């Protein structure tokens, strides 16, 4: 009976779901096709149409079924894999290798990613310069564009960027869904503070060495993007560290714990995003009148954002990335998307609709380029 009440509240009728999808349909059409769909290359045209349909179907089902996380995760995981494919494909075409050379560093041709941002802060403040061998403006993944994208997404979504925008998060999100039950069930609460310790260390070390130390030494995603050529003991050590961390924190531990362990234990940007949850209008709220303290939400949360004490107190911590897993798991619709200022338990549908539109639109547009490139590449491979 509870389940029936819950889904009746959250899901919409077929017609209403189509109506809610219409704005997404129109806006994504404009952005993905540029307003002028080009079918001169059939593979490219087919890829574009497939991606356009995929994002809108997923959004439709979010409204039609009342579920959020599973449809979000589909696009999120495909985005992560597509971006790796796009980067690797580009590097192999241009450089015939996944590794970047000394010449690429000297000519400042390294694509910028948002994980560099924490390390840029202190040097930018004190030396008024950016410590990264990339392009300030122009070219692929230039520094200015990535900073603007991340800044706006963080202001709007807060730590929601980690579940709706980060093109690396899909990796450990995907691996955390393998298997029905966690092998490791009990993890100390202390570890969720690790990203702050990592943030402190990388900010200090980057400032002192004038080098993005996280990227140089411990970014696990070098394993699926690009890395420095192995030409010395030091570069071999770095490659070993990347591969070990990717294997451990992105594959093995998420499978064993069903948690996003890289995002929870290592990512320094996650620490900054956690703090940014204070400035975003969107948050998750707990309707104490509906909550029966079954703590299902605590078990499913992939980022250690919920504890039993928090649920009893009726609050969700700043670690929440608004992925929707707890919302989908709750049989009483007690935990729900909310807007700051609106009391918990009220205007649930309205808050959810606004949040979904904002977050999904960002993810759909941000990811479409990489996914289209990937689909295009796969179509060319098959046909």
């Amino acid at each position, binding site marked *: 009976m509870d389940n029936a009440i819950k889904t009746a509240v959250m899901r919409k009728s077929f017609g209403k779901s189509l109506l809610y999808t219409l704005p997404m349909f129109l806006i994504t059409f404009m952005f993905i096709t540029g307003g002028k769909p080009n079918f001169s290359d059939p593979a490219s045209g087919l890829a574009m149409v497939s991606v356009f349909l995929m994002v809108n179907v997923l959004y439709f089902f979010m409204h039609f079924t009342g579920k959020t996380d599973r449809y979000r995760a589909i696009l999120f995981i495909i985005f992560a894999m597509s971006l790796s494919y796009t980067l690797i494909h580009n590097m192999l075409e241009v450089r015939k290798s996944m590794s970047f050379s000394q010449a690429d560093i000297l000519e400042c041709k390294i694509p910028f990613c948002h994980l560099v941002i924490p390390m840029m802060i202190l040097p930018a403040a004190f030396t008024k310069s950016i410590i990264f061998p990339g392009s300030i403006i122009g070219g692929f993944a230039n520094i200015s564009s990535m900073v603007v994208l991340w800044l706006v997404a963080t202001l709007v979504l807060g730590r929601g960027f980690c579940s709706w925008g980060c093109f690396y998060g899909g990796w450990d999100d995907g691996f955390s869904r393998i298997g029905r039950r966690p092998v490791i069930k009990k993890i100390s609460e202390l570890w969720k503070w690790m990203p702050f310790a990592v943030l402190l260390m990388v900010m200090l070390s980057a400032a002192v060495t*004038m080098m993005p130390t996280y990227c140089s030494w411990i970014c696990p995603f070098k394993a699926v993007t690009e890395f420095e050529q192995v030409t010395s003991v030091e570069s071999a050590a770095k490659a070993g560290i990347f591969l070990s961390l990717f294997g451990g924190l992105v594959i093995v531990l998420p499978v064993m714990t069903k948690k996003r362990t890289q995002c929870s234990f290592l990512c320094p940007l996650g620490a900054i995003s956690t703090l940014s949850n204070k400035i975003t209008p969107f948050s998750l709220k707990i309707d104490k009148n509906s909550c029966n303290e079954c703590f299902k939400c605590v078990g499913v949360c992939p980022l250690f954002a919920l504890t039993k004490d928090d649920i009893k107190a009726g609050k969700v911590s700043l670690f929440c990335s608004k992925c929707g897993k707890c919302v989908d798991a709750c049989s009483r619709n007690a935990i729900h998307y909310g807007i700051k200022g609106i009391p918990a338990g009220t205007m649930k549908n309205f808050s959810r609709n606004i949040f979904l539109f904002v977050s999904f639109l960002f993810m759909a547009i941000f990811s479409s380029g990489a996914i289209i490139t990937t689909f295009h590449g796969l179509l060319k491979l098959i046909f």
Partner: protein
Amino acid sequence: MKKAKIVAGISWAFFCLILIIILFPGLTGLSNSVSKLPFMKLNPRYTGGEIGNQIISAGCTLDIRKPVFNGFLKERSSGFVQLDWHGSLPEIIKDSIDYDHDGKNDFCILIDRNNLKTVLDPISNKVKSVAVSTQTSYGWAVRVRLIK
């Protein structure tokens, strides 16, 4: 008060909605504006420093950049000087470099582009070793380690 909070929250949420809608079409403009901020320039440790001197001979141009000792709070005791060759480069590059413009050569460098060999002959005791010597899209670049 309660109503005011609700109105404020909803307004803020709608503002964010508009922000996301205009983000992507306005990305180029916003990026251009951000790129003009005072701190949005690459550190000389990555750009190689400003060009200090240019020597042109036989269709080949050599840029001798200014030495880079940039640190976090103050200059470091060790740094480098970058040399860039572009144009039509010979198979063997041999140059004597005066990077500090005191009229005396500081080091000689020999680059065998075919065998990818670089030999540094330091004259000044401030010149230490070759940090990088590599072919680039424009020709060839070398970074030589220096101390102050």
